């Protein structure tokens, strides 16, 4: 009986396991996760779980019965030490071995830590797992002022959740606006307004140079000389792909595990999906690694089909959301740079679509409180042809009529 081992029991790994059974695979499936919990959904960790609004049970991706009924072997709280590519075998840290016929690596990412003095002080947190969220929640329970270091998506969501929980929140962000790298200055200012209007104090163009305190964080010191007293600090400085498992093996690693558009690595029988996978995207014609929820679900499923010999070119328009205060923010597409932003709707009302264009082509779209229209932009993004900006801008033009004919 063939064995498929899946290392990483989060979104991509569990989606792959479920898909393997859906597609009729009747061999052995072993789903291995480092965390002790059943696969759960991470987006609530920086939002409603952090606020105590959503209980953990509600974040489970599937009930425990799901795995039992489908005979998916769960090895949770289990660390994999090594993979032996030639022998097709995994070595667990416990010393146990597991032979496989095919392997899916869905190990995700780990938070970046910078060598900022005091970053290891108690009271300084980062957020990736439910255990991290629980530690932050406990600290939030003490009240007081929280400092958020880095206003990327996780930082901005944590700032909102803590503010909504009644804490005083001060954010320090090295760029000119929150979400600057993802959204640029114009839309970044909208996010800045959202946070300021909700009482988040923000120091932009500034960076944390030290966390200080006697046995526990008491203040944050910044490059511009600010000293911000606080009872806790949370940093969100991005992630790096967790690709160590294949270090020293022939599996190619370059900004994650390099795979083609069917999740295949350069080593036959070994696949990767989710945050760890630097995949070839056929629409853009280049490699990319994304850290989105939707990609975890869909690429996990696509990898499973690929493992069964039913792979298709994975050409999803990448998409994600972020909820901050009353703003539902969505992003679709692939931009790395743009030469023009066209807005349909109102920036000041925080209800709009923003199209990021390069040479007249829509590379990506950002929606704020306008999710209804988002999926209608996917064909426009995918077509990769020039679109009349006046029609993009005009809310009376049906977006479904705007996708340029593909060549």
């Amino acid at each position, binding site marked *: 009986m063939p064995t498929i081992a899946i290392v990483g029991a989060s979104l991509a790994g569990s989606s792959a396991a479920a898909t393997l059974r859906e597609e009729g695979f009747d061999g052995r499936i072993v789903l291995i996760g480092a965390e002790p919990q059943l696969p759960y*959904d991470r*987006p609530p960790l920086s939002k*409603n779980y952090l606020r105590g609004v959503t209980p953990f049970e509600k974040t*489970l*991706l*599937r009930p425990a019965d799901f795995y039992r009924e489908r005979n998916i072997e769960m090895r949770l709280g289990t660390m994999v030490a090594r993979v032996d590519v030639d022998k097709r075998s995994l070595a667990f840290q416990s010393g146990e071995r597991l032979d496989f016929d095919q392997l899916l690596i869905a190990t995700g990412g780990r938070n970046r830590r910078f060598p900022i003095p005091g970053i290891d002080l108690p009271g300084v947190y980062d957020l990736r797992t439910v255990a991290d969220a629980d530690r932050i929640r406990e600290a939030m329970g003490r009240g007081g002022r929280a400092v958020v270091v880095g206003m990327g998506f996780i930082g901005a969501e944590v700032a909102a959740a803590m503010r909504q929980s009644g804490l005083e929140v001060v954010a320090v962000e090295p760029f000119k606006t929150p979400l600057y790298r993802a959204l640029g200055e114009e839309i970044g200012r909208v996010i800045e307004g959202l946070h300021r209007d909700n009482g988040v104090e923000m120091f932009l163009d500034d960076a944390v140079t030290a966390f200080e305190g006697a046995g526990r964080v008491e203040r944050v010191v910044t490059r511009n000389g600010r000293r911000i007293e606080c009872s806790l600090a949370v940093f969100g400085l991005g992630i790096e792909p967790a690709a160590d498992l294949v270090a020293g093996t022939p599996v190619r690693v370059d900004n994650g595990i390099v795979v083609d558009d069917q999740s295949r690595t350069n080593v036959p029988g070994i696949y990767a999906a989710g945050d760890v996978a630097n995949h070839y995207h056929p629409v853009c014609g280049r490699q990319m690694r994304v850290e989105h*929820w*939707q990609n975890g*679900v869909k690429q996990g499923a696509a990898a499973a089909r690929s493992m069964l010999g039913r792979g298709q070119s994975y050409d999803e328009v990448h*998409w994600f*959301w972020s*909820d901050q205060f009353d703003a*539902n923010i969505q992003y679709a597409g692939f931009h790395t740079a743009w030469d023009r932003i066209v807005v349909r709707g109102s920036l000041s009302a925080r209800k709009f679509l923003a199209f990021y264009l390069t040479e007249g082509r829509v590379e990506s779209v950002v929606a704020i409180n*306008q*999710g*209804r229209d*988002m*999926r*209608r932009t996917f064909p426009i993004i995918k077509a990769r042809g020039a679109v009349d900006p006046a029609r993009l801008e005009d809310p009376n033009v049906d977006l479904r009529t705007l996708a340029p004919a593909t060549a």
Partner: protein
Amino acid sequence: MARFVTVAKADSIQPGQMIKVEIDNFPVAIANVGGTFHAFDDTCSHEDCSLADGDLVKTAVVCPCHFAEFDVRTGAVLAPPATVPIKVYPVRVQGSDVQVEF
């Protein structure tokens, strides 16, 4: 006791459209799928978003916030992040009125 409540005029909801109504202060979405009306919980079972603000694609309602999808005929989940079905309600058209059993 369940009874039929008039919620809208039939000609006020075009095919492919949804509206949100309140029955006893409870938000219910009404969808017109090719001339047939369907009624279901307006609030997504994932998080508090109004499904009537979303998109109707044939018999699927797509939540505008996180793209969870439900079958408007049965309430079944068609796409995550939702994992719990939504409730659906019987609908009838009496004369020009759309009525929901609630």
